[in-house]
C-alpha cells in the first residue's frame, strides 16, 4: 500500500470535505425552516392542509434520496431550468430534510400532554401563541437531540450527491482513486474522514440527549 500518493492528494480530499460540510449545513438550515413551516401548517392549518402536506411528506419519505436528487437535477433541465450540481443537491437535500424534520417537530409536539395546550387555550391564548409559548418549549428536549441525530445522517447522505457529479468528498475520492489506482487506500481515508466528522457528533448527541432528558424530568409533572 502506497500512502505517499494518498498524502499528496490530501488537499483535494480536504476540499471535498469542505463542500460536504457546506452542503450539509446549508441543507440543514433550509430544511429546518421549511420543516417548521410544514409542521406549523399541518398543526394549525386545518384538515385540508394537514392532508395535502402529509401526502407530500409521505412521498418524500417513501422514495430514495438518490432518486429525489436525480428528479431535481434531471427534471430541472428537462423543463428548461438550468441547475448546477451544487444547487440541485442543496435543493434536493433541503426538501428531503424538511420532510423528515417536520415529522420530528410534529412528534415532539405530540409528546407534550394534550392538557398543556388546553390550559394555554383556556387562559385566552390563540392556538399559535399556545404552540409558541406552551407546547414548543416543552417539545424541545425531544426535538433537539433528534435534530442533531438527523444532521449526522445528513452529513452521510451528502455522499449521494455523487450521482450529480458534485465534487463532495465521495466523488472527490472516486476521482482520485480512478487516477491513482488506489481504491482501497483512498476509500479507507474517505471513510475515516466521514468517521471523524460524524463520530464526535454522535457522542455529543448522547450527552445532549441525557442532559435534556434530565432537565425535562426535573420540570415535568402530571
Amino acid at each position, binding site marked *: 500500500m502506497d500512502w505517499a500518493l494518498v498524502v499528496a492528494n490530501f488537499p483535494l480530499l480536504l476540499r471535498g470535505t469542505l463542500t460536504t460540510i457546506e452542503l450539509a449545513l446549508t441543507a440543514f438550515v433550509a430544511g429546518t425552516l421549511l420543516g417548521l413551516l410544514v409542521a406549523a401548517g399541518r398543526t394549525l392549518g386545518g384538515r385540508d392542509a394537514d392532508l395535502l402536506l402529509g401526502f407530500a411528506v409521505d412521498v418524500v419519505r417513501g422514495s430514495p434520496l438518490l432518486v429525489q436528487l436525480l428528479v431535481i437535477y434531471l427534471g430541472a433541465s428537462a423543463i428548461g431550468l438550468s441547475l448546477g450540481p451544487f444547487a440541485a443537491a442543496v435543493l434536493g437535500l433541503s426538501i428531503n430534510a424538511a420532510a423528515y424534520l417536520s415529522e420530528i417537530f410534529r412528534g415532539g409536539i405530540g409528546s407534550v400532554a394534550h392538557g398543556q395546550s388546553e390550559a394555554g387555550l383556556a387562559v*385566552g*391564548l390563540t392556538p399559535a401563541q399556545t404552540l409558541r409559548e406552551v407546547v414548543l418549549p416543552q417539545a424541545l428536549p425531544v426535538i433537539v437531540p433528534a435534530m442533531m441525530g438527523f444532521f449526522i445522517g445528513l452529513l452521510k447522505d451528502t455522499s449521494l450527491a455523487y450521482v450529480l457529479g458534485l465534487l463532495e468528498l465521495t466523488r472527490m475520492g472516486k476521482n482520485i482513486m480512478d487516477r491513482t489506482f488506489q481504491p482501497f487506500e483512498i476509500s479507507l481515508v474517505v471513510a475515516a474522514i466521514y468517521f471523524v466528522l460524524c463520530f464526535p457528533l454522535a457522542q455529543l448527541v448522547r450527552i445532549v440527549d441525557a442532559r435534556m432528558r434530565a432537565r425535562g424530568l426535573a420540570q415535568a409533572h402530571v
Partner: protein
Amino acid sequence: MSTGDLSRAATPAAAIVRVDHVTKFFGTLKVLDDVSVDVSRGERLVIIGPSGSGKSTLLRCINGLEPVSAGRVIVDGMVVGDPAAPLTRIRSQVGMVFQHFYLFPHKTALENVTLGPIKALGMGRAEAVSLATALLERVGLPEKAREYPARLSGGQQQRVAIARALAMRPKVLLFDEPTSALDPELVGEVLDVMWQLAQDGMTMLVVTHEMAFAADLADRVIVMDNGAIVEEGPPQQIFTDPRTTRARTFLTRLLKRSERHHR
C-alpha cells in the same frame, strides 16, 4: 338581525352563562343530551353525577374547548363558536381550573400567572407582575412566586392554577374536579381558596365529588346522568331528599362512601 348582532343574542339580564338545548356527540356516542341551564351572575352552581355523565364535557363546551353538536352556549351575551365572537375573548371571560392543574412546567409560578395577561390581554410586564403577585398572595402562596411547578405540592400547584385563571379577570370560573387528583390532606387548602372566591362574589361552576363542600358552597346543585340533567335544586333538597330514582341511587352510594371518610 345583521351578522354582527348574531353574536350578541338576546339573553335574560341576569344569566351570565346560558346553555341552550346543547347536545354533544363524540362520533356516535351521545355525551350530552339536550342539556339546558342558566347561570346567574354571582351564582355558585355545583354539578355532580357518576363518571361519564358528561359533567366535564359540559364545562368544556362552555369555554369552547369542545364544540357543540347541537344547541348553543352563550357567555356574557356572546355565542360560543360564532365566528363573530373570538374564542380568545370568551375564554378571557371564562376561567378554567383543571383536575390535573396543567401548570406550565417550564415557567415559574409567577410566569404561569402573567402569561395570559401579557400575551392575551396585551398587559405590560410590570403591571402583569404586580397583578400576579397580588393573586399569588390571595391564594396564599406569595413566597412561591419564583418556584417551578415541579417543586410545588399538588395543592400548591392547584392554587397557582386558580391564580392563573383569576389573572384574566374572568366573570365566571369553571372548576373541573379540582381536588380529585390531590392527596386527601391537600384538598382542604384548595377548597379554602374556592370558598374565599365564593365569598368575594365570583360566579362559579364546580364539578366535584366533595359532597360536604358542595352542600356548603352551592346555591344550586345539578345532578347529571348519561349526558342529561336528571335533577336540579337547592343543596338541602338534593342531598337530603332527591326526587328522582337515578339521583337517589347515585347520592346514596356516594354519601355512604364520603360518610365513611369523614368519620
